């Protein structure tokens, strides 16, 4: 297997045929999130700085994430802390940060950039969150076709 040297900032970018408002809804609305993010159940809560974002496994038996909103500027910028609680080893690492940036782009598309940084104290998390590529592709497919990828086994 090829190993990758972990870096402390990861950048993901894609164009989605949707308005910035639709993209904003997809990253903040619990019902939509469940459809492209491994069935994750996000507790409803206020979208404001300092509010917490609790995410559970699909059957709500395990806490997957308990993050805090750091910036909230609809429909442009949404920043929150990140800690992977679904795995004990990852949960023991330092908190990192996820920033979603949405910009209107040409021909009715939106440019979505996800920056996952402050990964200095979370090398295992840095390796595991490479799965953002899959999540973001799924988000794009859902917004453009109304259907997410088939459920994983």
């Amino acid at each position, binding site marked *: *297997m*090829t190993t*990758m*040297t972990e*870096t*402390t*900032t*990861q*950048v*993901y*970018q*894609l*164009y989605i045929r949707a308005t910035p408002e639709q993209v904003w809804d997809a990253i903040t609305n619990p019902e939509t999130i469940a459809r492209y993010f491994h069935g994750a159940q996000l507790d409803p809560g206020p979208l404001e700085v300092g509010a917490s974002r609790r995410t559970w496994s699909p059957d709500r038996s395990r806490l997957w994430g308990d993050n805090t909103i750091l910036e909230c500027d609809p429909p442009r910028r949404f920043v929150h802390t990140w800690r992977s609680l679904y795995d004990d080893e990852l949960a023991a690492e330092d908190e990192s940060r996820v920033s979603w940036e949405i910009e209107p782009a040409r021909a009715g598309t939106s440019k979505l*950039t996800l*920056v996952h940084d402050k990964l200095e104290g979370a090398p295992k998390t840095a390796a595991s969150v*490479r799965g953002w*590529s*899959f999540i*973001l*592709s799924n988000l794009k497919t859902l917004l453009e076709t109304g259907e997410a*990828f088939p459920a*994983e086994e």
Partner: protein
Amino acid sequence: MFKALGDPTRRHLLDRLFERDGRTLTELESELEMTRFGVMKHLRLLEEAGLVVARRQGREKLHFLNPVPIRQIHDRWISKYRAHEVSALLDLKTSLEDTA
């Protein structure tokens, strides 16, 4: 995107970013036998193809490898069942080449 990948210098630049992400032009230039202008041109092509994202951080412009377009190519032509077979074959190739 395939045009962007169809050049050894550009693949080399992506390899450098894969090793360590978030590099400046000066850093990338120091590893290539090429003028700053040449490296800039290649980086611009990679940016246009969506394979590299440049971001300002303070006074510096850092270049990051964007894995999303490659993931999309993967999803288009490799089904989730075949992914395991492909990955097993690649592991085999790597282990055989490492021991050779």
